């Protein structure tokens, strides 16, 4: 945790020059949010006490509290109670930046996306199991291996998307393939948002089972595994969406 007891640096003066008389909560919100995104305020940094910060910004504590509440909703500030408490900066990492699009989706929309994905991925898996050749299976295994080796979020997202698009291509269906492509370009970033290293292992296990079922020409099993895989990812997204309100 980085402490900044006295914000007397140039950066602090720039940030906290008083807002003009009409300064409103959203102006404060914008200014602080920008400072956090630009890295002027560091992750974990404790903001000055409310009365002092309000004084530095030239707004009332009521206005400041409004702004802090907005920043909390945006996930950029975390307020802890009790001894050692206060408002702390939560700088958006790779995942943090991606939380914004998630906020724009309702739980109903997320559930609906999950339903759509399950329909496409489930049918693609079933048909792929009926129609795959040995070379298709090798291609799928290559893509599954690439996901296992991907370190960063963008790498995982790309490898995961390609694997699912390849499964739809293995189903010999241009329409299902286009649906998978559209779905992944729409929600690909979101899918990997709540996932960490442990989930990569879980996803990789699902993918291996799915490819095994495709290789064994077991359509019903392939479909069931694909649907279960999508349902688990949807459940994690829904949890994350709900948790945004608890911060």
């Amino acid at each position, binding site marked *: 945790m980085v402490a900044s007891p006295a914000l007397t640096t140039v950066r602090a003066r720039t940030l906290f020059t008083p807002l003009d008389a009409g300064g409103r909560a959203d102006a404060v919100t914008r200014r602080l949010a920008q400072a956090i995104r630009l890295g002027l305020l560091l992750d974990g940094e404790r903001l000055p006490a409310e009365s002092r910060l309000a004084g530095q910004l030239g707004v009332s504590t009521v206005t400041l509290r409004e702004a802090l509440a907005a920043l909390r909703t945006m996930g950029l500030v975390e307020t802890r109670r009790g001894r050692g408490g206060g408002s702390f900066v939560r700088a958006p990492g790779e995942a943090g930046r991606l939380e914004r699009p998630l906020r724009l989706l309702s739980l109903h929309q997320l559930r609906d996306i999950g339903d759509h994905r399950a329909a496409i991925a489930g049918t693609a898996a079933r048909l792929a199991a009926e129609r795959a*050749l040995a*070379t298709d299976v090798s291609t799928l295994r290559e893509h599954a291996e690439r996901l296992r080796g991907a370190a960063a979020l*963008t790498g995982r997202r790309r490898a995961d998307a390609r694997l699912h698009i390849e499964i739809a291509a293995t189903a*010999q269906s*241009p329409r299902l*393939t286009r649906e998978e492509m559209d779905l992944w370009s729409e929600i690909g970033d979101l899918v990997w948002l709540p996932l960490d290293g442990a989930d990569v292992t879980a996803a990789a296990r699902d993918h291996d089972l799915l490819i095994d079922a495709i290789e064994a020409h077991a359509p019903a099993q392939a479909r069931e595994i694909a649907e279960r895989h999508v349902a688990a990812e949807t459940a994690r997204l829904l949890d994350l969406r709900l948790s945004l309100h608890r911060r």
Partner: protein
Amino acid sequence: MTAAPASAGEDLLAAVTATIGRVLVSVTGVGGALAALAAAAGRRPLRRADLATLRPLVAQVLARHRGFAAGAGVVLAPDALADAPRWIDWWWADEGIGQLQVDLDPGSAEFYDYTTTEWYREPARTGLPCIAGPYVDYICTREYTFTVSVPVVAGGRFLGVAGADILASEVERMVLPGLSLLGPAHQPAVLVSGSGRVIASSSASILPGEVLRLAGPGGDDRCGGDDRCGGDDGGGGRPGTMTASGPLPWVLLGGPASAAVARDEPATAG
């Protein structure tokens, strides 16, 4: 399993071979022009701008095979050009003509690694023309597609491939009337790729994209291992590999046996 013996069937295969062969000849012309460019440049490595002289030729290919070839162009081997590690100069025909835009940066989320595709890999490996597919081409045509490609070599160095995309629906349109007209003894009549993937069929119970599980010459349960260019046709070549003047690596099947095979039932010859 029996191959359809009817001469009508052979005529059908000859006709589709001739049409695809004409595309192959056009594509070979583009490949030759690329090789000539490299030869003329001598020791100076080619640059992207040099490829502009190929474009009228590619446009001619698309015009000549309008409605049949959906895209055409050249795809460069990694490091074949001085100013791009990887390069695709590929054009699609629609109302007009447009250039295919793909992400060739290996670090990007949308990176397209064309070196793993059958239509690139097989000519690079065998030095022979190839017909890949049918496969779902989600990069260019976004349709069920064949790609014919030829290797381009200059001064003993593999420069890349020249190729063209052919829509599977056009091939079906060409062969389906003929399949349906084969005699009753040859129904259902099914055209399959060298690896057993159905290209066209005269019966709704055997559909394009399905795999006929055949007893191959090597005892495999399939015609071959690959629906694109790979596999083993038992004759030393590969199902997807063609010679410039040789036949397509496709098989015409006819009679009740083909229906039995499609359902994984034991097929009785004759």
